[in-house]
């Protein structure tokens, strides 16, 4: 009997199972999906770049004998007391409220042991964070939750947050289930209500106003503290130029892979530019203004390895900042909690409902029982180890390129594996001299 060979069932690329599941979820609930983290879609990234290494025309440095410096000083433009860090990797701003107290303590401990800074977030400065962070950057945010002049003066630097990579142009929402008495008290709001973090600052609009706001902050802190401006990766050339104009000592530029505690998935995935695409325009703006290396550039959004660090520096950054990777280092999305992730309808590596406060790892929660799972001392050690590895990897690559300081890495040390990455990073496509957009 003849049997027609069957055609395999064909799934639509446009209507994938994942897409269809989101359509069904939306139809059932009537509300968009909210989650934490940064963009999950594949975008051109540091993986698409390679170092060329030393060769006939470049001398390498001996890996175990010759020094490769990693120190960086942030805030040399106006501040009387710039921040000196041993490594060019800082911990990004993450709020107490979105993170537990022990998690903030762990970040402070790890950063301090590694010789770098950590950063507050929305919700103000906690004692465990200040106490365990030798260098603490205090975020000045639109909500001004917990903002007070005493904490401004206790900080080592002030970061005026204009935007972040996960949601340039967006505010935030901390859902009621994470608003404990302590969190609510710090924010001057009732317990258990959803707390909105505004998308714009309440008392200035635009760079002309911001320049005056920065004057006020400097006057209150006696011109001692470096003032950072953090922008999301939207229009990096102009955002950086205007930040310089507004008087920044340091600019933090956060690409779309940068995480958030909670916002709409559609916002995370569809607004902003990849980190890789932001760096060269930002550096160009600094160079055009004669401010490269005078106003320091800190890049964040998807930094995972020492290779990522080295590539960001080679493209012109002075330092990088990590958030998601730091959380993973201290235990976020650890496979040991797989059974509990399954109960929450997710799996290790994919857990991103940080706003719900049910984090099995005890990091993105205010639940006392879950929080107790995180030992801040041990977690701090893990973060220190991870930061050390990033630094060692970065040094390894820099030595291979013949650099005695990681800041000596340069675009000439790189090539790109894809046309997109070559265009964004403005380095040649591998095997060619072609930089898209620069002619032949």
């Amino acid at each position: 009997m003849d049997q027609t060979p069957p055609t395999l069932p064909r799934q639509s690329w446009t209507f994938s199972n994942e897409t269809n599941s989101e359509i069904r979820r939306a139809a059932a609930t009537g509300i968009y999906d909210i989650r934490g983290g940064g963009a999950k879609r594949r975008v051109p990234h540091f993986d698409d770049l390679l170092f060329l290494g030393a060769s006939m025309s470049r001398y390498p440095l001996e890996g175990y004998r010759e020094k490769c410096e990693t120190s960086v000083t942030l805030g040399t433009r106006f501040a009387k007391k710039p921040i000196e860090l041993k490594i060019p990797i800082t911990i990004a701003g993450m709020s107490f409220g979105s993170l537990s107290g022990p998690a903030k303590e762990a970040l402070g401990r790890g950063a301090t042991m590694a010789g770098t800074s950590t950063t507050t977030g929305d919700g103000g400065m906690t004692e465990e964070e200040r106490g365990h962070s030798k260098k603490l950057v205090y975020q000045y945010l639109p909500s001004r939750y917990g903002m007070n002049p005493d904490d401004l003066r206790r900080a080592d630097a002030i970061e005026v947050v204009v935007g972040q990579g996960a949601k340039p142009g967006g505010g935030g929402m901390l859902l009621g289930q994470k608003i404990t008495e302590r969190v609510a008290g710090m924010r001057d709001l009732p317990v258990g209500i959803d707390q909105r973090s505004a998308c714009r600052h309440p008392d200035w609009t635009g760079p002309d106003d911001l320049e005056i706001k920065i004057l006020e902050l400097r006057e209150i802190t006696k011109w001692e503290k470096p003032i950072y401006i953090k922008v999301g990766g939207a229009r990096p050339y102009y955002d950086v130029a205007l930040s310089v104009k507004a008087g920044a000592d340091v600019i933090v530029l956060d690409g779309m892979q940068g995480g958030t505690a909670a916002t709409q998935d559609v916002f995370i995935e569809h607004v902003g530019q990849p980190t890789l695409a932001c760096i060269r325009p930002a550096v160009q703006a600094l160079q055009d203004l004669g401010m490269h290396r005078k106003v320091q550039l800190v890049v964040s959004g998807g930094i995972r390895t020492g290779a990522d660090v080295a590539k960001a520096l080679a493209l012109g950054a002075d330092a990088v900042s990590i958030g998601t990777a730091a959380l993973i280092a201290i235990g976020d999305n650890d496979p040991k909690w797989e059974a509990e992730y399954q109960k929450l309808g997710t799996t290790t590596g994919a857990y991103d409902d940080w706003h719900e406060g049910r984090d099995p790892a005890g990091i993105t929660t205010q639940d006392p029982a879950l929080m107790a799972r995180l030992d801040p001392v041990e977690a701090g050690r893990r973060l220190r180890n991870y930061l050390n590895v990033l630094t060692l990897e970065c040094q390894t690559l820099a030595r291979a390129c013949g650099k005695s300081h990681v800041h000596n890495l340069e675009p000439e040390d790189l090539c790109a594996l894809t046309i997109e990455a070559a265009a964004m990073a403005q380095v040649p496509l591998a095997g060619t001299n072609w930089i898209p957009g620069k002619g032949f």
Partner: protein
Amino acid sequence: MNADAGITTLDLSTTELREVNETLQSARPGNRRYEIVNTRGAHAIAVGLDAPIEVTVKGSTGYYCAGMNKQATIRVEGSVGPGAAENMMSGTVIVDGDASQYAGATGHGGLLVVKGNASSRCGISMKGIDIVVHGNIGHMSAFMAQKGNLVVLGDAGAALGDSIYEARLFVRGEVASLGADCVEKEMRPEHLDLLADLLAKAGADAKPEEFKRYGSARKLYNFNIDHAGEY
């Protein structure tokens, strides 16, 4: 700097802003009265003070006059630019003239008195400050106001108290419109007492009974898709 009759005079035409603020920020109890002259609309005058001193600013100022004040009593014999007494923690700031946008923004405590009018976004995101405006206030005032009291003897512009939390708003005149989740509320005896106290402190000639109280309906405190159209 000139000290006469117990008053230290700081002249902004001959003294740098940094020196003026440094003098005020490092003031000791023995030297309690200061005046600032030739202000010429300068920004960030008398910011970050933290002592029970009295400062008189003789003239109008630019942005953020008396910003983040603690303990000090600061009187401005003129008008103030945007952000006067922003994020004030305690103390008293009195503006004899008008105030531009964002007066008292995000203030945590203390008393701000504006003898004239205040522009838009007065008391935006206030977190415990008391504000008394003798004249009118502009649109979007008390936006996302969290705690504290805003008293207006005149009229209020559009969208008063939009997305308000637990702050209390008292208006004697007309309200152009209320913002999302802001409603008129019952004026109970404790509110009349509170209002009488604030009016007295602010030197305002008005009766508490002439005011209406506004506050949060608390319908938007937890996100509900059925209320999405109200934002």
